[in-house]
């Protein structure tokens, strides 16, 4: 009776019924078989009731403990799903999954899913910051566990490593490597099919009671939903990114000016931005260049960007001043949903009379570098972003733009940092340009981006456009000519004159001329045959005791192995230059050659084979 009372007091209706039944059965048993109501029998009845009471207490406590766990597990589950759904894309989700281990009191948490018929582990191997995850990810074992839970169609819980190895012998080495005492494998379903497994390992033994199993399964279904969301996001991102890239495309190399552009998507999150750049040949020695930034992210921003970019090219071709071009673009943007508030910096460069005219619609100031290396921001023609307010009259400013001048247009992603004034970012950019302005523009563009993001991830996308007028000053050599064999010699002679200002040693001069000559010969060979007028650009400068040269063309280099003559050319470049970098971009090939100007031991480079 005590047991019944304890059960009733502490526990559920079911428990009370069970103890009542048990009590009646015992009473019946005693009445039936124990006729002797002596002290001994009474004593044994009391002992029996006490034992029954103790069992009742124990059994009753278990659900109380469970109830306590589920009280904790609900907010925990809430936190877990917040973490998982806050992640964008599979890689971020992978990181979030790896971090679940501590909240689940586990040693590792990981996800294995099939992606393009390949089993992929998350967090990604290189993102598993703790050494604990690495052995989990680099094993055949998770694949076998996935196969098992897929076959069973339900979660698998192994309280001991031995039971896991009994079920999946392939995991024997793995449990040792990850020091797993207990392991849970929760199937991840997508459209009623098991597509992956959520794997939880513990270094302490887990009993996996019913509520723990239920909890882990609930976590598993949150993971499955987060995976579905992440995959949808990835598809959307890749479509938007592809659209962005194809809308931007490579800008056509134009003769008479050297220019290059970069577009870099944000590194954080999945946002594809609306940054863009544009170059337009306007005729009469005029070239239009622009960088813009449409509001918002994703597909919408990409499509607006595409429309504005085309519209700007058409407006630019009207041949009006920079201010008028932006005024026409204002009117266009006013009619295009999502386009108002886009910022644009637009400039016209005249290569005959050497001037530059710029106008800015709320865009960060272009950077102007004089042929002597003075760096200034062009901030005298600022206006509102596109289509803000009624019929804005825009202003433009014209500055001299001599041979060797450089202008850099960029989007705010290049200079802005969270919690930092724009002035700080502008100064950082100015300092980088002041240090590296002499570099060939391809390298300058890379150097700007590399330096500014050396210690910070890109929170926004970034567009950069660099334009420089051809020059042969002592500091900088820039020549741009048609990619044709008859241009090789005149170009070489100009370069020889320039190199001679910096180097006396004939072997070094020959090495420089030969490497550049081979790079140019490659450019001539592989210039697009269907390109309207293939061009090659040679740039050179000296930094310290190093000469840095860059040859950029509009072609795609064949792998050297297919062509013995070109293969020999590449071999010559590799031997003669101190460092060679070949970048094959969508817009063409860029070869950077570095020659040391201090030859310690000339003979070291001249193995004799006489």
């Amino acid at each position: 009776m005590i047991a019944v009372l304890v059960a009733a007091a502490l526990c559920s209706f079911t428990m009370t019924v069970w103890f009542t039944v048990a009590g009646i059965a015992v009473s019946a048993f005693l009445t039936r078989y124990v006729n002797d109501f002596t002290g001994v029998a009474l004593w044994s009845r009391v002992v029996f009731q006490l034992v029954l009471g103790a069992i009742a207490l124990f059994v009753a406590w278990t659900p109380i403990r469970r109830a306590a766990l589920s009280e904790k597990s609900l907010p925990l589950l809430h936190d877990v799903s917040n973490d998982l759904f806050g992640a964008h894309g599979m890689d971020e989700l992978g990181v979030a999954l790896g971090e679940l281990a501590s909240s689940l009191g586990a040693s590792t948490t990981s996800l294995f899913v099939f992606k393009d018929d390949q089993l992929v582990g998350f967090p990604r191997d290189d993102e598993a910051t703790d050494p604990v995850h690495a052995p989990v990810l680099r094993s055949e074992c998770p694949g076998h566990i996935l196969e098992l839970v897929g076959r069973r169609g339900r979660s698998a819980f192994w309280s001991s490593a031995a039971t896991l190895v009994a079920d999946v012998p392939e995991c024997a080495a793995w449990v040792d490597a990850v020091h797993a005492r207990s392991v849970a494998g929760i199937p991840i379903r997508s459209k009623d099919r098991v597509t992956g497994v959520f794997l939880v390992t513990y270094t302490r033994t887990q009993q996996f009671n019913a509520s723990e199993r239920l909890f882990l399964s609930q976590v598993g279904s949150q993971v499955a939903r987060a995976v579905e969301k992440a995959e949808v996001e990835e598809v959307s991102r890749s479509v938007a990114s592809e659209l962005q890239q194809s809308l931007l495309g490579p800008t056509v190399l134009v003769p008479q000016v050297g220019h290059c552009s970069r577009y870099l998507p944000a590194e954080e999150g999945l946002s594809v931005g609306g940054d863009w750049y544009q170059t337009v040949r306007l005729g009469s020695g005029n070239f239009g260049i622009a960088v813009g930034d449409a509001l918002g992210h994703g597909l919408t921003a990409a499509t607006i960007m595409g429309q504005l970019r085309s519209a700007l090219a058409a407006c630019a071709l009207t041949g009006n001043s920079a201010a008028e071009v932006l005024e026409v673009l204002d009117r266009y943007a006013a009619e295009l949903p999502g386009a108002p508030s886009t910022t644009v910096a637009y400039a016209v460069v005249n290569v005959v009379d050497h001037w530059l005219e710029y106008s800015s619609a709320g865009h960060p100031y272009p950077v102007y570098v004089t042929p002597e290396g003075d760096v200034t921001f062009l901030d005298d023609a600022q206006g509102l972003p596109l289509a803000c307010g009624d019929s804005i009259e825009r202003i433009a400013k014209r500055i001299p733009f001599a041979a060797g001048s450089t202008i850099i247009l960029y989007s705010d992603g290049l200079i802005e940092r969270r919690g930092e004034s724009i002035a700080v970012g502008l100064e950082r950019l100015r300092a980088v340009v002041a240090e590296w302005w002499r570099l060939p523009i391809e390298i300058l563009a890379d150097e700007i981006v590399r330096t500014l993001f050396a210690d910070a991830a890109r929170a926004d996308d970034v567009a950069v456009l660099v334009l420089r007028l051809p020059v042969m000053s002592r500091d900088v050599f820039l020549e741009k000519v048609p990619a044709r064999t008859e241009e090789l010699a005149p170009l070489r002679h100009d370069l020889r004159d320039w190199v001679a200002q910096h180097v006396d040693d004939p072997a070094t001069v020959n090495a420089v001329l030969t490497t550049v000559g081979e790079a140019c010969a490659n450019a001539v060979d592989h210039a697009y045959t269907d390109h309207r007028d293939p061009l090659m650009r040679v740039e050179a400068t000296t930094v310290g005791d190093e000469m840095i040269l860059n040859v950029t063309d509009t072609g795609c280099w064949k792998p050297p192995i297919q062509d013995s003559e070109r293969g020999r050319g590449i071999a010559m470049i590799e031997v003669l230059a101190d460092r060679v970098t070949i970048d094959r971009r969508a817009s063409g090939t860029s070869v950077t050659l570095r020659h040391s100007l201090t030859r310690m031991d000339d003979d070291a480079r001249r193995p004799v084979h006489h």
Partner: protein
Amino acid sequence: MPDDLCTIETRQTDSHTIVRLIGEIDASNAASIDHELRTIELAARNTFVVDFNALEYIDSAGIAALELLARETNCRIVIADDATVYQTLDIVRFNAGNPLYDTLSDALSGAA
């Protein structure tokens, strides 16, 4: 064939036909230089000697053409190791297996 980049000086002795390449050879004139040298070599009835010492520049296209010519005509090549293009030719092991002569007199006497 006139060529602004590279002129070919020809000299005859009783036993040798000597050509001296003066200037630069690149992809734009490699074929015409090759053609001109072969014409001279065909007419030559004696040992054919090509002097590279006055070359100021040669690229891989020039090397490819001249190497084929050297193989096929078995000519003697003169190049001193302080010549401007020596380094370039050395890198690609120009005419490997055959002697290269430091000076014209070495080539004429056949002493590599």
